[in-house]
């Protein structure tokens, strides 16, 4: 137990703002934009929320790739709605990051100049229609697993953005499951295509939870700040636990021969994840890194005239309104 003398020594080191921040975190309350917060907390959140936003925006690309070639009008409409959702998620998150004092322009510059990271999962190509199913089922599934606890993140605007996002993500995962299920109930070739997509996306999806707990340097601090609620390995286990019965319903095989329930540990045993691949893709040497950034930069630059025209129109309208009100007076 801490003696009163020790306690006062600690108290003296903290400013009233620090004490208030610590108390709010200890009470599992929320920090809001105008509250005082430690610089490291602000920086961590800016990094995490902007990376998350970039992931949503870059995540539009592998799927928009299939909009023109979706197998039916229904699937095309669904895919368009999903890609539109990803854009929306990116915007919620950019807005949340901005409340921490970074500008949208700066975040966009970081992304298109290659200074910012985004989820490495979006650097894999999508060669077949079954990839749309695998992305929905595995990638969005992993994202939901990661994001549900983030709804309770200690930073208010981030948590609120995550609540909206999670509500919308569940449709994404279900439509992906349905695409794969329909393929699995089709011809041999279709079944093969579904299995092939699952084989390619399974491991990258498991890597989305981040490095193993003993190699995740920022995890402890993020958990102490109530930004992160569960460790990477815990979430990964939880995700695999959900996938196994779903894969059975679908009739696909998860591409891990070592995957087996272990009664003793109460967990799934699984093969080692190939982290060198993860590091490679994260370092920008994945199959589609350059392509994704190039496409984003093009979209940003080619849209410049639209932004300028809209700003100019707004300026003229405001001028006209001012002139009109002047004339009345």
């Amino acid at each position, binding site marked *: 137990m801490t003696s009163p003398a020790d306690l006062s020594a600690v108290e003296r080191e903290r400013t009233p703002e620090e004490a208030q921040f610590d108390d709010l975190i200890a009470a599992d309350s929320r920090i809001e934009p*105008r509250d005082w917060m430690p610089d490291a907390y602000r920086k961590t959140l800016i990094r995490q929320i902007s990376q998350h936003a970039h992931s949503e925006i870059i995540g539009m690309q592998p799927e928009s790739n299939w909009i023109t070639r979706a197998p039916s009008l229904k699937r095309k409409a669904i895919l368009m709605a999903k890609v*539109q959702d990803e854009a929306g998620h990116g915007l919620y998150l950019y807005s949340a990051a901005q409340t921490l*004092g970074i500008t949208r322009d700066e975040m966009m510059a970081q992304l298109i100049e290659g200074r910012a990271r985004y989820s490495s999962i979006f650097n894999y190509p999508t060669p077949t229609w079954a990839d749309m199913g695998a992305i929905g089922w595995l990638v969005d599934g992993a994202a939901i697993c990661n994001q549900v606890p983030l709804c309770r993140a200690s930073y208010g605007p981030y948590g609120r953005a995550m609540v*909206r996002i999670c509500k919308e993500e569940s449709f994404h995962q279900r439509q992906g499951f349905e695409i794969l299920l329909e393929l699995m109930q089709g011809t041999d070739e279709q079944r093969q295509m579904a299995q092939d997509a699952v084989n390619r996306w399974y491991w990258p999806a498991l890597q989305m939870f981040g490095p193993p707990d003993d190699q995740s340097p920022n995890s402890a601090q993020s958990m102490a700040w109530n930004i992160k609620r569960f460790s990477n390995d815990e979430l990964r286990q939880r995700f695999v636990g959900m996938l196994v019965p779903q894969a059975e319903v679908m009739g696909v095989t998860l591409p891990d021969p070592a995957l087996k329930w272990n009664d003793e540990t109460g967990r799934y045993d699984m093969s080692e994840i190939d982290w060198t691949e993860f590091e490679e893709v994260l370092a920008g040497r994945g199959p589609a890194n350059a392509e994704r950034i190039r496409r984003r930069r093009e979209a940003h630059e080619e849209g410049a005239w639209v932004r300028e025209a809209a700003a100019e129109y707004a300026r003229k309208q405001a001028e006209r309104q001012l002139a009109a009100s002047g004339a009345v007076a």
Partner: protein
Amino acid sequence: MSTPGEMGTEPWPLWEVFVRANRGLSHVHVGSLHAPDPDMAVRNARDLYTRRNEGVSIWVVPADAITTSDPDAKGAFFESPAGKNYRHAVYYTKSEGVKHL
């Protein structure tokens, strides 16, 4: 710390968005967005915050038009109601058991 919408480096102003979910309910803050003018802000708000029938009406307000209480003076500013329990019905216990009170 700077407040979004106040910065010269942001080309478009920030708008706060309020959505009325149904007739009879008040507009509730749902988030914010960027737009060059009020008309575009309303259209963007429709696309961003009501893709699934979340609302029947939208308000957009320029973020820098909002005046807030000082968060640092939180305690002092909201001090007045403290210790005034008699403003709540539960303060009055003698009527317990008496009907319709």
